[in-house]
């Protein structure tokens, strides 16, 4: 009863509480909408094609995935060993193996990241990266063992590595995924309107491999980051550390205006201005035989550039906030030791505000993944699974926008696909947002 009494006692509070409950309602509504229609989508397909099936293929162990699995197992073993109380095995290996010169470390790291872009097998690439990360973490732990310091034992890496071992093992010993789930998550062909007589219901020529949409989405989002991160972070550093107040007073509102321009206008900009520029470069690439198809005005590079320009102000202003939150004493402390301004910035300020900057990048990535109108106008509406970034493709958001643009009766398979794609998109952005906000709140607590 006390709850009810409390509610009636403080009427204003109760009304406000009910108002804030609407947020829960909205979230439930979104999740319910997406989830129910997605389940309907999968069960529709499952009726014809089953839920999930695959073929065993043990020869895959000898392929890239098998090798990746081996690497991960070694990494897991070393990781466990390094955190063991004595760590005798690792100590027998000379320290310079774990802690070589800074230049070597940076070189290995950049190679590990670059090979991820060019590696045919994503799993192998990521395992190599993980190995390098584990190598560094062991290096730090060994350093602490020798010089002293608290060794924090966390199970995070162990869990991540174990998860990826499971994935690689699964990838190595199976092939030919089919069924509703297998098709959606593992196949690369996205033709939701098959050439059937009755376009409304499911037929054999339709296929729903969302990877083709996902690939383009990631191409656009990460391409956007490549453009926006150096410029945005550079801009933020310049504004907070270097800019004379008068210039900052001009640039900051300009960035705000840039951030306020609607995405459809950016799409128009990409369509009439960036697209033709990219095509000129693409023609050159095609003439030199770097790409195998002639370029089109609509392409993922175009989308990446325009989305990059779009998220630039977001990264710039959030990173600037992070840099401004760093206490002035740190800056003065470094300068008082005789550091130049750029040394102070690069060695102290960035390190101090790193998690704030990372949070801004993650949130910007989430924005880039969810961006719709600009990519619809810039990237095109043909779902293809190709690494050639000069030909039209389709992102997840663009698929939704394009599909509902036409006449779309409720309940048919085309209507259901947009919810399945939407749920996938929602899950990706939600994870990114959760991560970003967590990093951000940790950062806010630190200062």
């Amino acid at each position, binding site marked *: 009863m006390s709850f009810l009494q409390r509610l009636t006692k403080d009427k204003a509070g109760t009304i406000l509480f009910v108002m*804030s409950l609407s947020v829960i309602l909205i979230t439930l509504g979104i999740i319910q909408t997406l989830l129910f229609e997605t389940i309907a989508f999968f069960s529709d397909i499952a009726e014809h094609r089953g839920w999930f099936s695959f073929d065993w293929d043990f020869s895959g162990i000898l392929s890239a995935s098998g090798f990746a699995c081996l690497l991960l197992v070694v990494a897991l073993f070393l990781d466990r060993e390094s955190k063991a109380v004595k760590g005798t095995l690792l100590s027998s290996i000379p320290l310079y193996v774990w802690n070589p010169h800074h230049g070597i470390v940076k070189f290995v790291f950049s190679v590990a990241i670059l090979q991820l872009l060019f590696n045919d097998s994503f799993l192998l690439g990521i395992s190599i990266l993980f190995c390098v990360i584990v190598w560094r973490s062991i290096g730090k732990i060994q350093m602490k063992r020798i010089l002293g310091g608290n060794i924090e034992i966390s199970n995070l890496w162990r869990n991540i590595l174990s998860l990826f071992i499971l994935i690689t093992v699964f990838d190595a010993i199976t092939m030919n995924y089919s069924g509703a789930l297998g098709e959606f998550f593992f196949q690369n062909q996205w033709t939701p309107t098959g050439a059937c007589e009755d376009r409304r219901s499911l037929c054999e020529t339709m296929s729903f491999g969302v990877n083709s949409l996902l690939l383009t989405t990631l191409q656009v989002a990460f391409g956007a980051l490549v453009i926006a991160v150096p410029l945005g972070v550079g801009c933020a550093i310049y504004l907070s550390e270097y800019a004379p107040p008068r210039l900052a007073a001009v640039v900051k509102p300009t960035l705000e205006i840039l951030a306020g321009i609607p995405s459809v206008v950016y799409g128009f900009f990409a369509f009439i201005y960036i697209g033709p520029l990219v095509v000129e470069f693409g023609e050159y690439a095609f003439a030199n035989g770097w790409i195998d198809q002639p370029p089109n005005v609509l392409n993922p590079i175009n989308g990446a550039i325009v989305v990059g320009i779009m998220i630039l102000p977001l990264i710039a202003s959030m990173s600037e906030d992070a840099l401004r939150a760093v206490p002035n004493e740190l800056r003065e402390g470094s300068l008082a030791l005789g550091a130049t301004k750029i040394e102070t910035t690069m060695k102290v300020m960035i390190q101090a505000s790193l998690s704030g900057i990372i949070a801004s990048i993650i949130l910007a990535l989430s924005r880039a993944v969810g961006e719709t109108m600009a990519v619809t106008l810039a990237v095109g509406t043909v779902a293809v699974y190709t690494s050639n970034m000069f030909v039209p493709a389709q992102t997840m958001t663009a698929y939704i926008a394009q599909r509902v643009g036409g006449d779309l009766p409720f309940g048919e398979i085309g209507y259901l696909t947009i919810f399945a794609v939407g749920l996938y998109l929602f899950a990706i952005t939600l994870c990114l947002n959760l991560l970003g906000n967590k990093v951000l709140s940790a950062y806010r607590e630190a200062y």
Partner: protein
Amino acid sequence: MKDIDKLQKRSRKLRNLTERVGSTSLAIAGLIGLLFLGVLIWQIAEPTFIKGEQGEITAVSEWIPESDYRFEWDFPNIDENGNLTGDPVVIRFEWDDENGSHSHDVQINVIQTRQIKTDIYIDSNGVDQTEIDVGRKTKFYAYSTLSVPVTVEQISGPVPNADDTGYPSVNTFVISGDVHVLWDDENEQVFQTLELLAWTTLLILIIVFTWPHETVISLLSKIESYKKLVRGVFYILAALTLSLSFEFSDKADILELENYLPTLDAALGALCWAMCGTILYRLLEGIERLKNLKREIHETSRLKHSISNRDGILMWSRMLLFTSTIFIPLLIDIPFLTERYQDIFVPYASGIRAAFYGTIWVMLIAMVVSIPISVGAAIYLEEYAKPNRITKLIQALVTNLAGVPSIVFGMFGLAIFVKQGGIGWGLGPSVLAAGLTMGVMAMPIIVLGGQEALRSVPRSVRESAYGIGCTRWQVTKDHVLPSAMPGIMTGTILAMSRIMGEAAPLVVVGATAMILFDPEPLAALNGGNLNFTVIPIQIYFWTAEPDHAWHSMAAAASITLICLLIAMNSIAIVLRQHFRKRLKS
């Protein structure tokens, strides 16, 4: 000898070089933001000025299908004295019938005056006139009573504004000089004078008020003793502005937005006048005070201090200025914005009237839906909520909802508001459903902004209010909310300007590409026509058209949208700066 001097030195030259290179590259990165904006604005603005081409006549040749053919020119080729200023525009009509083939030339004199039209009639005897006068931008028709098609071809005069797809394409024959999509070269009834005058006066007074200049101050000091009179004059002007535009129309339809718009202009104009009066009065009052203190009136920094509530007046007048800027499109007669609907065939005759009204309605509905609830939620979370699980959950949901892609909100709207059956409300793809969807989308943004504003109210305000025995609601209502109000308003305006530019959710909800009437806001409830569109949607569909002429229209619509958004953001920025300054002091 110090220990450190024994070590190998780092090269100072290298360090200085890094410093210089680093700071320069950072500066470049910083200025690229400006560069992007410049390129963006230029690339978008440029297509709205279409340059006509003068030269050979080749491409344009059409035939009259059945009975009539429409012509339109956009420039005069005759000066005041009736002399040709260039090649004459000559049109040749040709047809073959049982009497053999016919060919008739008609010279067209395009004159400055509008609304003059002479139609051409074609029958078996030939064409009824050989030379006609037409006003520029006036359509006139060629009527044919023949049973055979007539070919029409321009054989002399400035070429139509043809693009590489061979414009004009269908059934229409537009010859144009410079086409300005947004700006009319010579528009007769452009401004509603009093309102614009009020707006300009306010602008000037704000400048004087912000940076008082010696000469202006000494000028003003001469009328210092008449300050009440001056204020009175301005108030009378305000009343005049309001009364002149008041027409109690018999159109009683309360949902016709158009009926209110003239009154809105006038009200804003009147407010501008009143604000001008107040500013002048305060300025003169300040001068008088300085004089009483036996101070030089030229000490402008003293003057600033002696004007009571200067910051507040500045904030309100700036906000008023920007608000009026939003409505200037209504003060100035831009046919693109306020008269023309989309013309299916003639890009340059199209406008965004339907989209403009659609945007206003969607925004209004979204505001009505979202603001009270979100502000309530923000107050609850900041002032009332105990740190328990429900609060944490709500807080986490709000933070993450703000980052959900807008298109997901569109799907939410599609399934809940648009769809019939299940949990769907069955509103259909209507303005109401769109407004509700947009409202839901704006909610988390407003809640976060509101929380931020409430959090920045100093703790001492609350504590002192509790200290004299206020209840929690009284503390919130009388002490916290007034201080946080500008912040909450800033957040709200920013949220509104963000959803104003959003097209993705409305594509999903089902905005249409083309409608030829003003959208009806309550159509979903009273069974009217559901179709609606908004400016971003219009831009989207126009951009997707293959014809370049439509891209000019998309550019014009983009410019309009950007102007509206910049005006809104400016209001928010003014509010925020004022708020920050007050919190600091």
